[in-house]
């Protein structure tokens, strides 16, 4: 019983940090979302949906599509790293795929802006190679640019988790399938991915949450409407000082990520049960 006090004292610094730097600001933001000029109400949410519902759908579509593509690309890379039979190709891929991890989102936005623009590097190469004429060149600096940026930046992160999980899968389970005549594609889909499904889910949920909170990429690549919610939040605060609507938009983003987190938790509970 006397041990309780020292234990509490030990926990206190960490608890204080969490309370004041995390719980309190979150509570203030949530409360702020319901604050209007006439007291508490849903006015901010009504305004948010009226002005930004297309942006909400745009955001969810972009982040959802990016998540799916990240999943597919990282399965392909992780699968090749685990099942590839050319040691040199595997070594090169292992060395290459992590690079984007070390590049900040803002730099990714900047790089892709010069790469994907109408007269950017990509179109210049395609024109130079005679594949398209200058008139056919189109800018990718819209939703496609954001998806490309997200996939390029987040795939290494998910692949890192996935390749680690794949490497720790019992090689025997792969060889047993090969022994019975399974092709490498079948081994990847039917043997390897199901065994690392939970790690894949964790990686994708974390990526989803990260992408929901990125401001620099939509600002750099796609400044027109529709745009992503993060850009809208920044705009409400910087242009109007309108914290109410900004907080409401933030809460809506939080609800979207919470849905994904809930889906993940339910899945992992079911696996355990």
């Amino acid at each position, binding site marked *: 019983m006397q041990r309780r006090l020292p234990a509490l004292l030990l926990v206190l610094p960490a608890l204080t940090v969490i309370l004041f730097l995390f719980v309190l600001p979150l509570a203030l933001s949530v409360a702020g979302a319901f604050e209007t000029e006439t007291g508490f109400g849903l006015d901010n949410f009504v305004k948010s949906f009226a002005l930004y519902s297309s942006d909400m759908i745009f955001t969810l579509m972009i982040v959802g599509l990016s998540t799916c593509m990240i999943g597919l690309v990282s399965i392909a890379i992780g699968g090749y790293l685990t099942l590839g039979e050319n040691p040199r190709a595997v070594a090169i891929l292992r060395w290459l795929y992590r690079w984007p991890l070390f590049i900040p989102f803002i730099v990714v936005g900047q790089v892709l802006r010069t790469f994907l623009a109408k007269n950017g590097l990509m179109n210049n190469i395609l024109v130079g190679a005679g594949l398209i004429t200058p008139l056919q060149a189109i800018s990718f600096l819209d939703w496609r640019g954001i998806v490309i940026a997200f996939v390029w930046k987040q795939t290494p992160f998910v692949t890192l988790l996935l390749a680690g999980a794949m490497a720790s899968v019992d090689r*025997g389970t792969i060889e047993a*399938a090969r022994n019975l005549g399974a092709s490498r594609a079948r081994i990847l889909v039917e043997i390897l991915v199901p065994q690392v499904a939970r790690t894949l889910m964790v990686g994708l949920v974390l990526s989803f949450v990260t992408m929901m909170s990125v401001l620099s990429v939509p600002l750099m690549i796609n400044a027109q409407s529709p745009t992503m919610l993060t850009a809208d939040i920044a705009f409400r605060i910087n242009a109007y000082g309108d914290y109410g609507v900004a907080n409401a938009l933030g809460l809506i983003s939080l609800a979207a990520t919470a849905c994904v987190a809930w889906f993940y938790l339910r899945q992992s509970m079911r696996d355990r049960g």
Partner: protein
Amino acid sequence: MMHQGFLDIAGLSAGYGATQVLGGLDLSIGEGEFVALLGASGCGKTTLLRAIAGFATPSAGRISVAGQDVTHRPPDKRGMALVFQSYALWPHMSVARNIGYGLKLRGRSKAEIARRVGELEELLGLTGLGDRKPAALSGGQRQRVALGRALAVDPRILLLDEPLSNLDARIRLKVRHDISALQKRLGITAVHVTHDREEAMVMADRIVILDRGRIAQQGTPQALYNRPETSFVAAFMGAENRIELSAGIEGDTVAILAGPHNAPARLPRDGRPLSSGPLEARFRAEAARLLPAAEGEDVATSDVTDEALDLAGRVETASYPGGAWRHSVRIGDETLLVDAPEPFAQGAAVRIRIPAPALFLFDRPGEVPGPNEGSTGNGPRGRALEALKT
């Protein structure tokens, strides 16, 4: 040997990177035969099995099945199925899906797969477990699922990579018999890798003992047990007691010279390739008898014994592992283990009598007594040789 050579291995060399594990190995296995590859870890037995299965690429040599060269065929095109040491069951699939996967890959209909899986579940005593995941099975059940998965595709050759090493000792004894009974019933050819001598002897028709990537000896369990050709094989087959002797070969007789701890003896040569000079003798603890000896008795001057070799020593400890008392007896600098029905007191002078058929004799090459015998730095050996010269 009378093997028809169903699975033939000729001049097989294999290894990992620069390390060569197998060097020019020849082995012929008959159809329906159960062969155990026995050896200590690192002897190349698993590499040999993986080369046969197609998971290790040989650097030289040829593997053929029923006269067809399969050396460079992929693992699934050899008519073989491998049972892994870890079982390697797919944790996300039910028992039925694990067993039926090979058939699914072969494009069989769902009804046919279900029928075959049902047959195998019944054969292996897994009925009613079809919907369970491997994690919900006992070790023995998992092992049978792994066996069922391999048998489902009707392989001509079943390869077993230490399939019993992860089982409890009690279950292992039963599963040994289950597997060999099943193999006999199905008439399938089986190659079984193990480091457990008893397991190999109980299960196999023929045992192949591997030592550093080469076949040390092969034959029936009885032949290997009773007539080991080398000291290594004798030790592996349980003859752990080792003594050094000196003998002269006189026709069909091996005349053991009296030594500091052994009496002279005349034993039948029994066709063994021995030459006069230093010999190495090996025997099993249970094959020797322990007799009381008079204090101060000198074995070297005792009468020549026929059909048995006598050693003189002193009991160090006695323990009871079951069946008989096991004595640790000190002979000079060596300690030998000998069984006796009744315990001898600690410190008692005893004679160890080893009957001729239980005494395995081998030449000690490179240990010819000569002027530089002390240079090996081997204390007891050097002293034994000195004593012989006197």
